[in-house]
């Protein structure tokens, strides 16, 4: 039974259905969109249920030839990592749609159609096992997001949207080149053309092209993550995007980058990965500290959260490139966590933005008095974001730091300062927004969050505590996948090192012989 195809295409079909609803009937449109999102979510739960948590390797695979002349297959499959991200995607989609219920008034139809197409693209990326298919889904995501920012965004939306697209396009073009190189390389290696990731992974690549390929893929993914210094599109995009756009952007789209690393860049180019570990780890540490410091002085809540994303994603990258079981698993969990916490933060910011039409921290103050329930939710989410134990953030961050420390003490030490700084910027922001007296008269008449908004937040808060206290179900599912990735990298490198060692030994023997000869010559002359 093919579970993934319906999952991927349900939102797309939904979008097509939605296209036939007259654009005046906004309530119907919202309802239909919500129902489709829920159906997708249920489908993802089916997938979750079908998934065998002990099985290593790809599950629920579908592999049918698609464009045979080019060796392109419609090849889908998931492992624990993609499974969790898929569920995250479907959950966040529902919440994003709910959050747009009131805030989107213009072009309702286009908005929800874009959201659904976006969902299809995202799920597709997480399922694709054929690089061609992956690339298509990767680009499919870009377009609706461009519209979401560019049409329903803030005052500088066009600038932000174009910046977002240009950055991403730049990366994905490099990736396309690298994909094509791999494609032709595989042909000269095995005599057939294929885009199949699993097959391409088996192909040995010489070290030099491997470096270039890795750089191409890594740039594409690093821009998406975004890794310092490729992050500057993020604050603009987040600040300008509508709430739902920010939620999806932070919650899922950023994960594409890290997912790309763990699914493609790292297993395909193990040697290059090893070479680039220090550079990427250092960039990640810089991202952690830099993102935290810069977010401390932001004046706009959304850009504060955006920069905090830079910091958090720095943790994920550091975890991935610590290359040990603890850290990588921590990183995978952290991807989910970041989706939940930052998604929730954006939802919360969206809620006060809807009421006050400003996001400047200075405009707020004393919300604890007028919006106690909101403040409580905000507090919980903030604590999860700064990684308080028993919230989800802690589990991921702790494992990442632990693994990074194991890999290199200094990575761990410097990255851990991010924990302090996270507390600084989050608490300071929280204090300025929620604590104190109500100084701005406009804040006095604010209403606390309503039931729809509570329903949006409650699942996230439940997830925050669930993952924080009992993360075992997540770990169980990612464990085989992560083990396999690491094992693959280790094996390939091991094999190569063995070969090199043999080479070195012969070389050394030869040199040794030469040396001894010289010595004897010297002896003779003496």
């Amino acid at each position, binding site marked *: 039974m093919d579970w993934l195809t319906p999952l991927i295409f349900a939102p797309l079909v939904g979008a097509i259905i939605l296209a036939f609803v007259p654009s005046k009937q906004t309530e119907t449109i919202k309802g239909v969109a919500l129902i489709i999102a829920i159906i997708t979510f249920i489908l993802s739960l089916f997938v979750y249920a079908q998934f065998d948590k002990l099985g290593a390797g790809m599950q629920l695979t579908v592999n049918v030839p698609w464009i045979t002349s080019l060796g392109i297959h419609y090849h889908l499959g998931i492992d624990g990592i993609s499974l969790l991200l898929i569920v995250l995607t479907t959950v966040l989609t529902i919440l994003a749609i709910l959050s747009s219920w009131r805030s989107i008034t213009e072009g309702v139809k286009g908005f929800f159609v874009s959201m659904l197409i976006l969902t299809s693209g995202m799920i597709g990326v997480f399922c694709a096992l054929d690089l061609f298919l992956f690339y298509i889904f990767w680009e499919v995501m870009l377009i609706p997001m461009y519209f979401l920012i560019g049409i329903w965004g803030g005052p500088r939306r066009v600038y932000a949207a174009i910046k977002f697209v240009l950055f991403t396009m730049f990366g994905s073009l490099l990736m396309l080149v690298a994909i094509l190189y791999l494609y032709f390389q595989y042909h000269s290696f095995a005599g057939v053309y294929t885009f199949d990731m699993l097959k391409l992974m088996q192909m040995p690549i010489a070290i030099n092209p491997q470096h270039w390929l890795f750089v191409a893929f890594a740039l594409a993914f690093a821009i998406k993550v975004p890794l310092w210094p490729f992050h500057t599109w993020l604050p603009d995009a987040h600040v300008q995007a509508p709430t739902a756009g920010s939620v999806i952007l932070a919650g899922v789209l950023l994960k594409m980058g890290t997912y790309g690393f763990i699914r493609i860049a790292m297993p395909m180019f193990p040697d290059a990965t090893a070479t680039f570990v220090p550079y990427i780890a250092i960039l990640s540490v810089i991202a952690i500290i830099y993102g935290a410091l810069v977010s401390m002085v932001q004046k706009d809540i959304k850009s504060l959260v955006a920069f905090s994303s830079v910091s958090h994603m720095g943790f994920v990258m550091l975890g991935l490139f610590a290359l040990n079981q603890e850290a990588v698993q921590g990183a995978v969990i952290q991807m989910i966590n970041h989706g939940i916490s930052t998604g929730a933060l954006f939802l919360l910011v969206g809620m006060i933005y809807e009421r006050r039409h400003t996001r400047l921290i200075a405009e707020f103050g004393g919300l604890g008095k007028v919006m106690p329930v909101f403040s409580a939710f905000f507090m919980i989410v903030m604590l999860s974001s700064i990684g308080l134990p028993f919230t989800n953030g802690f589990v991921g961050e702790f494992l990442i730091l632990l693994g990074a420390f194991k890999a290199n003490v200094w990575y761990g030490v410097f990255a851990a300062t991010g924990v302090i700084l996270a507390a600084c910027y989050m608490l300071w922001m929280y204090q300025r927004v929620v604590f104190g007296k109500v100084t701005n008269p406009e804040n006095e008449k604010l209403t606390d969050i309503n039931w729809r908004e509570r329903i949006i937040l409650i699942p996230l808060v439940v997830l925050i505590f669930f993952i924080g*206290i009992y993360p075992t179900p997540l770990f169980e599912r990612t464990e085989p996948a992560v083990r396999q990735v690491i094992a693959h990298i280790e094996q390939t490198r091991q094999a190569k090192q063995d070969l090199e060692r043999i080479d070195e030994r012969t070389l050394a023997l030869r040199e040794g012989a030469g040396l001894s000869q010289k010595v004897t010559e010297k002896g003779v002359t003496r």
Partner: protein
Amino acid sequence: MSEYLFWIPLLPLLGFLINGLLLGKLPRPVVSAVACVSVGLSFVLSLLLFFELRSLPPAAREIEQVLFTWIAAGSFHVDIAFLLDPLSAVMILVVTGVGFLIHVYSTGYMHHDKDFGRYFAYLNLFTFSMLTLVLANNFLLMFVGWEGVGLCSYLLIGFWFHKKSASDAGKKAFIVNRIGDFGFLLGMFIIFWQVGSLEFKTVMEQAPAMFVAGGGLITAACLLLFVGATGKSAQIPLYVWLPDAMEGPTPVSALIHAATMVTAGVYMIARSSVLYMMAPDALMVVAIIGAATAFFAATIGLAQNDIKRVLAYSTVSQLGYMFLACGVAAFGAGIFHLMTHAFFKALLFLAAGSVIHAMSEKQDMREMGGLKKYLPITYMTMLIATLAIAGIPGLSGFFSKDEILWKAFSSQHGHWLLWLVGFITAGLTAFYMFRLIYMTFHGKERMDEHTRSHIHESPRSMTVPLMALAVLSVIGGYIGMPHIFGVTNYFEEWLAPVVHGPGHQAASHALAAAGADTSMEWALMAASVILVIIAIFVARHFYNKKPEAATAMAEKMSGMKTLLANKYYVDEFYGATVVRPIVNGSLFLWKFVDVVIIDGTINGLAVISRDISEVLRYVQGGKVRNYATVFVAGVIVLVAYFIFG
């Protein structure tokens, strides 16, 4: 019985959940009942388990309960599991016992506050966190409690969040604690890295094999853990948050910032005594920091006028004593002082709360005086606590403090200088505590008429806990009397299986048995008692008999006084050297590095390509003739190529 262990922390958590989720929907009596009963039940359970533990033979005194696996990834494995051993048994008794009393007290103290429910929810959450901290069977779960109490401290300090000073203080507390936690985390990493586990039992068993005693790694690990402790327990250099924490409601100060949370650092060091014994250098640092903090904070305490701030600095100072004890490897003495301190300092704070309550929320001692006749119970109990903290023989503080001083002098890790600092501090303590008593309860009535008319003794719910604590402050010391009195030190024996001094038990026994060098101990004890009595009389002279003499003194030493009153300008120093540069640096990073350099580079690329396009677009000018011209030119070139090429 032992399978009920997890209920001890869980009960307050349930209390928190009930009060927190139904916030604003429960009537006040129910709220206070839920809060007090949950902690009270937890105390009863603790007592029962304590007796069960006692019934076991000393070597087997250990009850462990594993609930479920928390985090398991790769070689890392940590359970949610609780461990009751003699050390944690002492701690849970203190936490639930004192905690229960303070809960009861709070029902009276917070009676008029409209955020009653929220207050008790936080208080229960705190109790849960603190119990998790002390009952954890591994470092990570301990860290959970560690951060949890930090969070509650943050929430409770900033309880009246509409006051900027309160929310500032809460934030400061949390961030400073986070700095400490950073050390704690790294310390844990080193331990896990070397030992491969974070479970206390495994770590303590394996550590001697995995670490080189006195080596760099173990010293680093211990020092990093100690950084955590300095954060939580307000030691130099991270003590700055505690005085500000007095912005919170007074019972909170009593519970969190005197009796329980701030002592977590001491507990943690006692818990890792095995590790510290392997790192003498780290021990020395602990002792020096402890002694320095004790002295330093006591001097600041001399010049404070806010009643709670005096107590806050006193707490810092007393915590310094505990660290001094740990630093000279007298972990038992440290824990003993922790316990007695919990009694009398909680009492002092609660009594101070009672005073503040009576004084219509005024905290400045210069506006008090002569309260003795208005607040008899408060006065009596507070006097007892003051005598105890000053170290008057027969009261609990005397035994514990004296033990620390003696250990500082005699222990193989000790030094006479450490003793001397502790000794002087004892004098200072007696002085500033009696200054507080005299300024508050004796002498002229300096408050305004309006306040005076409202002065009243506190309600039952507040005075009963005071009396209970007063009793504990008196008798609490007798379970740990020094050997020279010819009795067994029950407390030390009780802790012996867990905390590992340098075979101090044997040493003390030998000393006691030999009876040889007890004269030295007696002499030191006498010296400190005499010093304390002198200090009390000096305080009496200045603040009761001749207040003008105090003013004259103050004028003479005005420089000194300003320095002390301003707390040595440490906050300002940190502000100028840490906070400002970070904020300015961040602004620089944002405004310059991010916007100008990184974005500038990228926008620069965009501008360049746009400018190139600006030029190129003239080619596409829409003029057909130009296109044709170019087309013909192209033909010419092609033909030329074929002709001449």
